[in-house]
């Protein structure tokens, strides 16, 4: 049996077309290579 309140709270708003610009700005584009490069830099220092 589903718990309605629990289920409804899991729904997240849809990204509106008008808010795309802001979403792109906030997108975290860090990938594994960035992380590894960063770690290497720290270790060398």
């Amino acid at each position, binding site marked *: 049996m*589903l718990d309605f309140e629990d289920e409804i709270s899991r729904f997240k708003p849809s990204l509106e077309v008008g808010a795309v610009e802001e979403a792109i700005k906030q997108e975290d584009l860090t990938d*594994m290579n960035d992380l590894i490069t960063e770690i290497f830099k720290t270790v060398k220092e």
Partner: protein
Amino acid sequence: MDRTINKNYQIANSYYNRGLELAGQRDLTGAARYLKRSLLFNKFQTEARNLLGLVYYEVGEAGAALSQWVISLNLKPQDNLAEEYLQRLYKAQSYLEMADQAGKKFNQALNYAQNDNQDLAVLLLMRLTGDMPNFVKAQLLLALLYMNHEDYTKAGRCLFQVLKTDRMNPKAQRYMTDVKENTGRAEIERRKFKNAFSHRQMQDDDIIIPPSYKENTGLQSVLNILVGLLMGAAVIFFLVLPASRESINRRHNQELQRYMEQLNQKSITIDELNSRLAEADAAQKNAEDSLQGLLDENGGVLSQYQTLIRILKAYQDEDMRTAALLYTNLDLTVLQDGVVDEILAWLIQDMQLKGYQELLKMGDELLNQEGKAQQAIDYYQRSLKINPTNPQALYQIGLAYLKLNNTDAANQYFGDIIMNHADSEYARQAREQRGY
């Protein structure tokens, strides 16, 4: 370091391949999961990002799709399929507008649903999923709301639509299990499954009748045909007709809802137009009033300026009496526009110094003539208008009324002097007139 980076590229490619495979099988949720992992290992994996955008687009998330394609084009501006996707999307403005509206409506509906306004949420979502049946999130939310209202059949339809778009959507599958349990569909499927795979050991006395074996007589054939016809009629009556009736009703309801929305929109437009018309009418009236105010013969601005000019002309001619008389007709409130403030200040000062006395003199001259007491009162009143606290003017008015045999009015003025100007020389004379 380079080896590690190469390894990451390989992992990203593997994830992309798996995502591509799942997308091909219409397991869009699974595909999205692998594509995101691919991008986590290599953000420059353009194919993965473009495909992720396509997956979002397919499930009705135009905003998320746009976002991925724009990022993709930024990371790789040349030879990128994302450019074509974006161009196509911008060319289809009507779709973009619809998708924009869909996102807004979904968020509104979600807000309604999460704040105990489920009926409104259902109405919005019905309209939304009618326009965009592949909007997975909206279908899922609508299904959940239907399930909460225990309308499992409608919920099942929404979930069916979701699974058509995203075959392995986990949420839809979970909801569908619940729907099937509540509609009895689960039991039917379990039985079918059991029958399909269950078997028992063949016994010695079991007889296998070949499917071609028939023992029908002519009468039985006729009966079979009749039974078949009856069953056909029953199927039409019980299954086809209600379904078609329901379909027609649904169509009518949707149409009615559309008309209602159009009607509401028109009403809003009419209200706006009426409001603008009222504003325009008010502005027109205001302008007309202003114009009338300017043109009005007695109290109008133009008329007041004319009077002022005539007063100044009288000053120029050293005709103080005319100036004082005209001054009492001047409406100073109309002329306080900052243009002639200095002239007015000087004029008021001069009138309070000399003007009121000229008017008193004019009144006195008339009072001494036979039958002109009423005119004299008019000049005294004008004098009072310039200098309202002058007991001499009050006293003279009293005398003029005595001449007119209006003792009551005269006593009123004498009383005023006795009460309010008790220290003046006219107080004594007023008392004498009253006989104190």
